[in-house]
């Protein structure tokens, strides 16, 4: 077979985009009259905006060879607190800040717990906060959803711009712009700044980072704060889209986020992965669900298929890496 290093490099960086395109073509061929409508495409983007944000936060944690199981609970707590704040009549700019701030607070607890208490693995600290934070979300709401948010608070989750081309309710969702800004910001941070590179270094060899004068504990705290912030922002979008804060939101969201990150080519053992890959991973999960939905495949089968895709994606990665070592 023909072997070209350039082609292999290209496939390594952008192969995942090809997967997304192939999926779109296949789904479009199966139900062209439904899939390709602006309304359906708008929906896919809107529905996956929250997962995209949470997955981006999860990605930063996974790059350090960590894991944050608490993001689903964090998102729910952010949603219900900002809904409460909105109902209490706080000015909307304050309410907008509540979600992300709650996320940052949970992230701080995770990071500080991990580094100060020296728990053996972030799995344990965040498993604790997964439960505790979810419990708090139920406590502050008595388990009931809180609806009726200020329009300004709903804006980011609900608004879309039809640009005079699309017929409502289709258009560019405001939440897509939030995701794009976060993704570009995160990409710049991870690739172009010293702290971003240190995050990768910690994932590759924490000892190397430490002896190079990198404040490893400080960066670990920062990483969990980023994950919390993203979960809080995701909560703001979801609260806006659904016009409510419900304490059982985002159940198992952490697993979807991990799946998206892994499908997107990041290594579970840290040090590897790209922002673009994570976004592709989110899209692959979203397209799979949408494609199966519009073909009337039951949600039970969707779970089976997503499971298979996760295993398949990692297997491809194993093969690719083995080939790279041989070369």
């Amino acid at each position, binding site marked *: 077979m023909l072997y070209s290093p350039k082609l292999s490099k290209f496939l390594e960086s952008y192969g995942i985009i090809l997967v997304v395109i192939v999926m779109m073509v296949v789904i479009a061929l199966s139900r062209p009259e439904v899939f390709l409508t602006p309304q359906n495409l708008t929906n896919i983007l809107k529905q996956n905006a929250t997962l995209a944000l949470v997955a981006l936060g999860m990605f930063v944690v996974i790059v350090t060879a960590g894991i944050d199981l608490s993001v689903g609970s964090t998102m729910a707590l952010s949603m219900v607190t900002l809904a409460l704040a909105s109902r209490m009549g706080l000015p909307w700019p304050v309410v907008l800040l509540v979600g992300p701030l709650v996320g940052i607070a949970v992230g701080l607890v995770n990071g500080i717990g991990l580094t100060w208490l020296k728990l053996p693995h972030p799995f344990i600290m965040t498993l604790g906060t997964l439960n505790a934070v979810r419990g708090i979300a139920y406590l502050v709401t008595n388990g009931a959803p809180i609806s009726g948010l200020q329009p300004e608070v709903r804006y980011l989750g609900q608004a879309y711009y039809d640009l005079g081309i699309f017929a409502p309710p289709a258009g560019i969702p405001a939440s897509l712009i939030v995701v794009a800004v976060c993704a570009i910001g995160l990409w710049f941070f991870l690739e172009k700044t010293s702290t971003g590179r240190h995050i990768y270094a910690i994932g*590759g060899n924490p000892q190397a980072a430490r002896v190079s004068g990198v404040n490893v504990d400080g960066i670990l705290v920062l990483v969990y704060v980023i994950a919390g912030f993203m979960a809080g922002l995701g909560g703001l979008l979801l609260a806006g889209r659904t016009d409510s804060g419900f304490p059982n939101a985002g159940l198992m969201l952490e697993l979807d986020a991990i799946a998206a990150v892994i499908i997107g080519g990041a290594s579970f053992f*840290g040090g590897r992965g790209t922002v673009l890959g994570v976004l592709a991973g989110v899209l692959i999960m979203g397209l799979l669900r949408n494609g199966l939905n519009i073909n009337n495949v039951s949600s039970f089968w969707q779970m089976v298929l997503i499971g298979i895709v996760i295993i398949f994606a990692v297997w491809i990665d194993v093969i690719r890496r083995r080939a790279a070592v041989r070369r």
Partner: protein
Amino acid sequence: MAGSATPLLEARGVAKYFGAITALHDVNFQVGHGEVLGVVGDNGAGKSTLMKILSGLYHPSEGEILLDGKVVKFNSPKDARAAGIEMVYQDFALAGNMPIYENIYMGREPGIKLGPLTIIDHHKAREMARSHLDNLHINVKSVDQNTEDLSGGQRQAVAIARATAFHAQLVIMDEPTAALAIKEVGKVLDLIKRLKEHGVAVIVISHRMDDIFYCCDRVMALYQGTNFAESQLADTSRNEVIGWIMGTKGHTESLAHDRLQ
């Protein structure tokens, strides 16, 4: 050393206790500018504790460290690096998932400083890495290669390049050849000699007499937590140094380990 210039580094009465355990006591020695000092000692003699004190990882419990005649106190490896003391670790301490040039400048990236953040000038970092590696006659395919794709000797060379990337005065090397294939040992030892030519002092910790006798100017033995004996390399022999490691002085031919049958 009567009448000579101030030594680059001097340890005076250094001791280190871990609870009830005495790791080091009353350690005194010096390293001159551009001198290569070999440090030998059996396992548990205190070599790595001493090196961790010099590189700022540990504080001495007693005694002081002088750099160019001035007492210095290191609170972290960062302080030691700022003072020009660098450490090369036995396991290289490189991030395998990152390219050579990023490993060399990790923690000291060139670029625009914005508070605690540096916006890295990757182009400049590559250029700097290339010219620095050329200076040390280290050949790599590309500074963009990840260090996990390098051989042991190349990794050691990158670790040494990192240690000397910024005006190092003293490089401490912990067992620099222990993790290498035999054919790569010579290259690394030559690199140590090259550092000396560049005016950098080196402390080499090694178990291999061949390493010590190939590249050092002077050798010092630690025994049971203190400096036991030292000599200019020309005035001693392998057997005598091996005797020091085992705590015997005035070594005779008949005691030499390689004569034991």
